[in-house]
């Protein structure tokens, strides 16, 4: 046999030759030192080329899909969640007390909150340290502002806050008898209940249960509390056991970390995290109403970015006004960060005001859906961050 050419040798090594030809090459290579050398060299090229190409994937954790790690519930998360529950309880209290006084245009209620107010909530004891409660205390009133504004603007804005409630609901219900008890005693107007439950389950499990009407009874009965508890628990399960966002891969380039999430089969989004701050101006939509409440809410794991602040920040009149303005324009529900649509790919950009990092989230989907995904990413990141902290 003639010496096989280099192409044939590669074909042979790649297993691409027909059986009879492969046998011929093999036999020849055994006999021919010259061809044996070529084969050895070819093996080197194959391995070398492979290795070089791998260097192109210069992504720290590689481009190979990695499933998001399973989340276990961290005690710290529970503590924060419990703390948030205090805020929720406080919120309801404040809302009850101020409900009929109608805070700055928020009472757009058609039905007056006529539920009886029996007595103030007994002191709530949770295993969160006082300083944290104090910090969050300042946002109690603020969360109250969510009340009706939230009902009107059922968007990502509110669901972030609601999601906090949901997170609080589950551990609170399961682990903290003390926190649950006062809630049972308090007769809470059904409207709030509905908002909280509906939004909460909607945010975490991404579905607004049609049966949130359970809460329609004028008083939060133990039955509906059970519903709340169950939903909360379910939501937590959903969030902790079946991470909805599968990290398909991460890729770090100069100046940016890119993460790919599979939000649904065949549906991926790209989160780009830039470390420079030149896009900061993009988020000035919320700057007017942020600052001080953020510090208060900063302890809560789910809060990030300026927009959330607008939900949490009620005390200042201007944010109340903003809330009203937003309720009045249903067609533009969120003070969205910058949005760009190109080639069917929608990209939203925002900056984390705490870190100055600029984020871009893009995917072939509507902006609303991206906003929802953004919230989920925020939440998962916060959970991850919480896990890292001692």
């Amino acid at each position, binding site marked *: 046999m003639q010496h096989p050419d280099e192409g044939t040798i590669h074909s042979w090594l790649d297993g691409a030759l027909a059986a009879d030809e492969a046998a011929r090459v093999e036999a020849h290579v055994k006999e021919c030192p010259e061809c044996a050398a070529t084969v050895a060299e070819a093996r080197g*090229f194959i391995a070398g080329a492979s290795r070089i190409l791998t260097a192109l*994937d210069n992504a720290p954790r590689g481009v190979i899909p990695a499933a998001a790690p399973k989340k276990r519930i961290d005690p710290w998360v529970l503590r924060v969640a419990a703390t948030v529950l205090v805020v929720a309880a406080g919120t309801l209290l404040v809302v009850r007390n101020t409900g009929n006084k109608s805070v700055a245009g928020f009472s757009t209620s058609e039905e007056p909150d006529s539920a009886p107010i029996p007595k103030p909530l007994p002191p709530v004891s949770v295993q969160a340290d006082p300083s944290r409660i104090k910090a969050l205390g300042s946002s109690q009133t603020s969360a109250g502002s969510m009340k009706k504004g939230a009902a009107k603007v059922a968007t990502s804005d509110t669901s972030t806050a609601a999601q906090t409630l949901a997170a609080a609901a589950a551990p609170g219900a399961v682990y903290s008898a003390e926190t649950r008890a006062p809630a049972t005693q308090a007769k809470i107007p059904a409207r709030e209940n509905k908002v909280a439950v509906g939004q909460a389950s909607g945010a975490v499990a991404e579905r607004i249960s049609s049966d949130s009407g359970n809460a329609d009874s004028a008083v939060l009965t133990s039955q509906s509390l059970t519903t709340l508890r169950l939903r909360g628990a379910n939501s937590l399960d959903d969030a902790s056991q079946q991470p909805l966002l599968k990290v398909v891969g991460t890729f770090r380039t100069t100046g940016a970390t890119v993460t790919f999430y599979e939000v649904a089969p065949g549906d991926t989004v790209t989160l780009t995290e830039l470390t420079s701050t030149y896009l900061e101006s993009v988020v000035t939509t919320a700057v007017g109403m942020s600052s001080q409440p953020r510090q208060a809410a900063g302890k809560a794991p789910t809060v990030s970015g300026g927009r959330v602040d607008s939900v949490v920040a009620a005390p200042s009149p201007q944010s109340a006004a903003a809330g009203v303005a937003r309720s009045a324009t249903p067609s533009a529900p969120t003070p969205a960060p910058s949005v760009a649509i190109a080639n069917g790919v929608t990209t939203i950009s925002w900056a984390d005001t705490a870190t100055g990092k600029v984020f871009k989230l893009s995917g072939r989907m509507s902006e609303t859906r991206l906003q929802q995904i953004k919230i989920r990413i925020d939440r998962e990141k916060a959970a991850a961050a919480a896990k890292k902290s001692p």
Partner: protein
Amino acid sequence: MTDVERLFRTYNAALVRYLTRRLGDRDWAEEVAQETFVRALRQTSIQNERAWLFAVATNLVRDEARKDMRRRKHLALLAEEERDEMVEPEETTLERAQEAAMARKAVDGLAERDRLALLMREEGLDYNEIAEALELSPGSVGTTLSRARRRLVESYEALQKSQEEREKNAAS
């Protein structure tokens, strides 16, 4: 599970890696891969799925490359500016970054057909699939691959050598 879902689950990782290596931009690669699956949605039947997907992705890159040339250049400039301002991420050691840069250079130096054949082979496409995707004769795939591998390795080694010399000069 729909067919496209199955396609996605089966091939997305390989396709994105292929495109990332081809384009040097993971973001872009992901976009092109998504577009490829969107095209697959519109297809009533695909004979050889893998060959089809890689061929479509390759063509999309070709089309987009023209359109995006200017945009990319602008982005590259921005990235350059940014690089001056930022601290290198911990995970990317200097050595790895150098390796990646040299690999990029070596790969970019290949003829387009050689490069694509090699990248496809790395993703597990067999000779027939590569031939189909690149419209080559199956018989020429071995030759194409052997040439691509040899050139890639040789040019990478040359780059390595000149890098080492530069370092030596800098040290002395």
